[in-house]
């Protein structure tokens, strides 16, 4: 059966141990990639001919933005799996991911507005990307608020999973309606991400940062996952072996 690995992985003791074992395999490469990306992005890459050195904010802004979206999607997928197959491990994963995603969404907003000040002359522009990101931040806040409102972990898991699924369906609708809204009001359309003609000396550090941030998320997620799995486990013998009563 191809499904056996899946169920084995989802069994709490196995998941707890695997997560513990995998953490360094995410953490060290993440550190390496991020340091390499920092050297490449801050030191080696040349200044942009239009934005000067301000574009270097992109090396932390863009990967944070990527994480903010990816994490919400992961939460929704994990939530759906948890709902459909009644899998506690999937809910634990969603619970572990949410605060990480929210914090990177906040980082995206702050770095975006720090980039905006020299570029637009103001810390906040109702630019479609930033506006969508702000709304995404509200979605995260709602998700975590809903989770926190329940005392019973299982109910919190399942109710918030429904919210994440509804939210992820709405994310593209919200994003495109915001883009459409922005096009009506002729907002500034300075694109600083995904320029087609980015020289390799600029692009390579960006890619390093993307991978580095993703692995960093993985490492933090695994640590949190261990905690969330333990919180969902009641009296199992394996817990005794792991934490040593």
């Amino acid at each position, binding site marked *: 059966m191809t499904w056996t690995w899946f169920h084995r992985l989802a069994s709490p003791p196995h998941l707890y141990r695997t997560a513990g074992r995998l953490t360094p395999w995410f953490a060290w490469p993440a550190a390496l990639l991020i340091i390499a990306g920092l050297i490449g992005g801050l030191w080696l890459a040349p200044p942009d001919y239009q934005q000067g050195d301000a574009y270097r904010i992109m090396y932390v802004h863009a990967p944070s933005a990527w994480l903010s979206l990816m994490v919400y999607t992961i939460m929704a997928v994990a939530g759906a799996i948890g709902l459909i197959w009644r899998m506690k491990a999937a809910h634990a994963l969603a619970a572990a991911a949410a605060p990480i995603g929210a914090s990177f969404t906040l980082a995206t907003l702050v770095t975006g507005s720090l980039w905006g000040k020299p570029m637009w002359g103001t810390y906040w522009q109702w630019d479609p990307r930033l506006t969508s990101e702000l709304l995404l931040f509200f979605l995260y806040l709602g998700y975590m608020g809903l989770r926190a409102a329940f*005392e019973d*972990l299982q109910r919190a898991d399942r109710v918030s999973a429904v919210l994440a699924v509804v939210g992820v369906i709405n994310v593209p609708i919200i994003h495109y309606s915001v883009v459409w809204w922005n096009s009506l009001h002729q907002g500034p359309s300075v694109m600083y991400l995904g320029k087609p003609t980015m020289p390799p000396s600029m692009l390579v550090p960006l890619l390093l940062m993307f991978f580095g941030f993703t692995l960093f998320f993985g490492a933090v997620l695994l640590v949190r996952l261990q905690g969330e799995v333990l919180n969902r486990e*009641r009296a199992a013998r394996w817990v005794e072996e792991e934490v040593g009563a």
Partner: protein
Amino acid sequence: MSDTTLNGENVHLWRGERHVLRGVAFTVSGGECLQLTGPNGAGKTSLLRTVCGMAYPEAGRICWRGRDVREDLPSFHAEMAYLGHEPPLKMELTGRENLHYWVGVRRRFAAAELDAVLARVGAGRWADRPVRTLSAGQKRRVALAGLLLMAVPLWLLDEPTTNLDVEGQHLVGALIDEHLAAGGLAMAAVHHPLAVAERGLRRLELGGV
């Protein structure tokens, strides 16, 4: 002879940190009433809610007519009635209106049938008053009328005699007896023994831990 059998196998249920049901097993067949007893917190209500599919057991299963009820909850629900602690009535509506909107989504019934069940539970005189104005015992009787009107084989009753006077308690016993005689089955969580004929009565003692 009849395949109307409800059985639970090795039912385990957790409520937060509490292991409420620990491997509960039972069988009830047509013509039988299973009386659940045990101290407060022993899991009587939890077991009833697990049986009716409102709580999801960690392990074990509930079978109706030999099939796991989880396979097809809607058709299982169509054959059962659950009465909780509080009569499920809207205060702003009359007893008759309550029954209309409550049982009416399950089956059509004639006005004569409604009158007959109301008379049977002794609720005929105040069925047209808003439920808000009724006493707790009168509300309970309206709820019992709903139970009869559903005309389903399986009754799941949580403390059905709460707030009823002695006569009302005998009424509950008589209703269950008639239900069993018609081939129905019942599962009731009780504090005080039901006034039910000994013949079809079975007991399940849940231990509180």
